[in-house]
């Protein structure tokens, strides 16, 4: 297993390098260092001298990928790519073009994102599995048909509608929780109720249908018939036999997103004023802050690789037949 993990991590290095180069090329195809300087310096009284000065201060006054004028290894090291991107592999994110330390910002903003995303995921998982099991329990009845119709309706509605509707009904009409905001520690709970509730509710439609499909596939298998023949009740069969066997596809979907929970959700955080990482990348793209863009894309890639690795490992935990080699 250890060998497998090390091998997978080594595989990820060229992948991350590729992601890094691709981000770099895509960013600089659209934006030149001059454009970045203009964006940072504002719209008034920007002169050629001030642009040159900005580029020099921020290290954008060297060539992008190849420094033909330099000697020896400096042909590579005296470039924007080398100076800005190599540190990422050591998780040194550096300073954003507006002067803030990116690592410190990410550390500060990841926790509020997690505070919304984790309960949403866990409660959502619980609710979705429960409802899916209930639908399987009542399969071929009016309850199941009604449930499916309801699920289709729920998943057809835009998540923005849930957010605005939830804020309107619970925050504005019933006045039960603050409509938006955030606080530290336990005081955050009252701000998290509404986004978590809406997050869970908006995911019920698709979640329940997905899990129902998984469970239905399982309930038709031979071991379930055997369990029933033994005299187990339907509830016992579902919870003790069907659920554990349906865990592999559930884990595939869940474990892979676990690391990405830190990355937050743009719309949710924007509407609920959660100081998370959701809007960090978008804001950076809008303000042409390459330092943040590259850091966030790199971090996203790393977390995704970790997520996939964790999924593989989790297989061995829930299915003894799986061996990593």
């Amino acid at each position: 297993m250890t060998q497998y993990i090390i091998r997978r991590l080594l595989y990820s290095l060229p992948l991350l390098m590729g992601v890094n180069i691709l981000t770099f090329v895509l960013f600089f195809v659209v934006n030149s260092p001059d454009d970045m300087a203009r964006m940072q310096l504002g719209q008034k009284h920007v002169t050629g001298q001030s642009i040159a000065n900005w580029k020099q201060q921020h290290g954008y006054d060297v060539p992008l990928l190849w420094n033909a004028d330099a000697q020896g290894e400096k042909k590579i090291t005296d470039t924007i790519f080398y100076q800005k991107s190599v540190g990422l592999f050591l998780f040194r994110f550096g300073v954003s073009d507006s002067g803030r330390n990116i690592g410190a910002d990410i550390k500060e903003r990841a926790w509020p994102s997690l505070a919304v995303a984790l309960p949403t995921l866990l409660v959502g998982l619980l609710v979705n599995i429960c409802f899916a099991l209930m639908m399987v329990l009542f399969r071929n009845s009016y309850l199941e048909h009604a449930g499916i119709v309801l699920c289709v309706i729920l998943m057809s509605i835009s998540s923005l509608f849930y957010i605005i509707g939830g804020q309107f009904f619970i925050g504005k009409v019933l006045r039960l929780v603050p409509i938006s905001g955030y606080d530290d520690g336990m005081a955050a709970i009252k701000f998290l109720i509404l986004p978590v509730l809406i997050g869970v509710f908006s995911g019920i439609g698709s979640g329940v249908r997905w899990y129902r499909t998984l469970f239905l596939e399982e309930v038709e298998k031979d071991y379930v018939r055997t369990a029933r023949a033994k005299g187990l009740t339907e509830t016992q069969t579902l919870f003790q036999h069907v659920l554990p066997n349906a865990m592999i596809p559930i884990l595939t979907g869940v474990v892979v997103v676990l690391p990405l929970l830190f990355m937050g959700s743009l719309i949710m955080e924007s509407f609920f004023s959660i100081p998370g990482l959701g809007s960090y990348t978008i804001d950076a793209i809008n303000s042409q802050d390459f330092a943040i863009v590259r850091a966030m894309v790199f971090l996203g890639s790393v977390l995704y690789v970790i997520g996939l690795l964790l999924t593989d490992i989790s297989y061995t935990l829930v299915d003894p037949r799986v061996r990593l080699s």
Partner: protein
Amino acid sequence: MTLLLMSSLLSRQLLYALLYLPLPCSRMKMKTCKARVLVLMLSVIFWSASFSCAAWESEELNNPYPEDENNQAVLYESFSERPKHLDPAVSYSNSEYTFIAQIYEPPFQYHYLKRPYQVVPLTAVRMPEVSYLTLKGEKLGNGVNDSDIAFTEYIIEIQPGIRYQPHPALAKNIQGDYKYHQLDKAQIEAATSLNDFKATGSRELTAEDYVYQIKRLAHPKIQSPIAEIMKNYIVGFDDYSKQVKDKAKTAIRDLPIEGATALNRYQYRIRIKGKYPQFIYWLAMPFFSPMPWEADVFYSQKGLADKNITLDWFPIGTGPYLMAENNPNRRMILLKNPLFHVESYPTEGEPEDAQKGLLVDAGKQLPFIDKVVFMLEKETIPYWTKFLQGYYDASGIASDSFDQAIQFTGSGDVALTPTMLEKGIQLQTSVATSSFYMGFNMLDAIVGGTTEQARKLRQAIAIAVDYEEYISIFTNGRGVAAQGILPPGIYGFDDKTGINPYVYEWLNGKAAAPVGKAQRKKIDAARQLMTEAGYAGGIDPKTKEALILYFDTTTTSIDDRPRMNWYRKQFEKLGIKLVIRGTDYNRFQEKMRTGNAQIFVWGWNADYPDPENFFFLLYGANSKVQHGGENAANYHNPEFDRLFEQMRNMNNSEQRYRIIQQMQEIVRHDAPWVFGYHPKNFSLFHGWYKNIKPNLMANNLLKYTRINTADRAEKRRQWNKPVFWPLVLGSAVFVLMLIPAINTYRRRVRKSIQ
């Protein structure tokens, strides 16, 4: 109350259940027994929920702020865009001035109440002594020709006894050494924010601090956005920049700059090139605030920047407020500066100010608010809802809530809707000192140039593009169609007779001026101009087809499509085919720089209330293509330039006014711009918000604000009583729905067993 009524509906079941509960289940049928238990459980849950809800009904469950702040003088504001910089040498946007203008104090400020805008001393004892010098440095007397003036000298004396806010950079140990100027690695490692440096200190503000800040403006590593402008004015500024280019930020303390010198502890002198009366306005901007050298020494220590502990994020000033929390992704908190000097609310203003209650606090010590909380709100819906709930004290009006807040009266005036009036909300409107315009690239072969043909084409377009309609459709009527380059509130603006005669005419003839109403000329007049320009019916004689013009813009989203279609339609009135060339911001800027744009829209917000700050946008020496300046239309008219050079150095006078009108006439005639509109700001304030007067030049307005906290607490209580009954009803329905589900399940189990 509603809850109690709801609960009583179930009380009969509860009673029923209680009566039968003592009976052992064996004496009843099993099914009946279970039903009783279920009813009892439901009732107990319902009653306890009802009582809890009743207890909570008096509380504000949706209050996003700590309970103990309810009766404190705390002002709640919001911000939608995180500030990029809070260093006064670098900050240059409204989103940044909102904060730093409350913290830093330049020597001068704008009078809060007086109009026209008037610069008055802030930390200075009096207005500066201004003297003009020859090239040899000899003083010139009054009535001297502008051409004889080689330098202007400003001598500024500041008040003694003004102290900086408590700050770790100024903390000293018992030996009298700065406590945090030589931090070791462990101290830096342990710190996560500025508040982790517990000891704070203060010292008196000196003239040297103002000089130090001017040196900072010149330092290339600080990257002040006005450094390039100041090179043209402050003596020795450019040389100083070159001299300190490779030196550390902290090195400038001991390196003198020629144009700024501290004469003694409380007096300093700034020497600028030639005559530039507008320099006084710069001295009222945060760029010229004092900076203690200790700040740079403290913040320059290695490792602090990695924790985002920088001068750019934790200011140190002498103003009425200090930055207590800086989390630009969530909230920014300003606290009253305990060491703030004596400054009182103005005792005089405009004649009607007393009647409006704006002089109630005259002479009282500022500021009135103890704490200001700025919350990040990116979306308008939650922001607006929180304002209506009383959790924000003031609000702008987004277009989607405009109809909810504002209605137009029969005479076309704006008024608040009854819902807003019922809440005691106040409306304040003001025309911004900004201009949005449609520019023509004067270097373009078709729309540009000084030929009669091109001029008439531009004039025809100016008539056809109906900005009154634009304001009505796209800004909810929040704007004033522009008659020239100057917005209202700027010296030289003539609101009575100053219409643009090439685009407008008096409704009832010239005799109706100055009380008559101007109206846009009929489209036939524009078509006539098109014919005179050689484009009869909009047909280009070269191609014998409709004239094609190109509109360059960065607005490419689907939301902007109606706006673009509107522009297209305006040009269609003249038979011109307008091609929209949407592009990203970078390419647009590039087109403007290289002169490849043909028609574009642009805007300008006044730096200071002087016509020079608008006319320079059309000054030939500022053309964007040739000189990289702010003249985006690349307009060049020698007569206009001559008048501009004459006007810019003059003090406001009858002669200056006349020149301004001459300049207006030239640009109206040449039409390098279609004068678009001046936006109108609409702001809403709750009834408890006091001392509201629009001041578009000053940014340090929070110190004048007062809040009636008792009124606010009472209103919030009334407006935010929680409503529980739909929740309880929903839960009850859900539980009741479970019963048939359980029955179905039982039937199914029984069936499978059978």
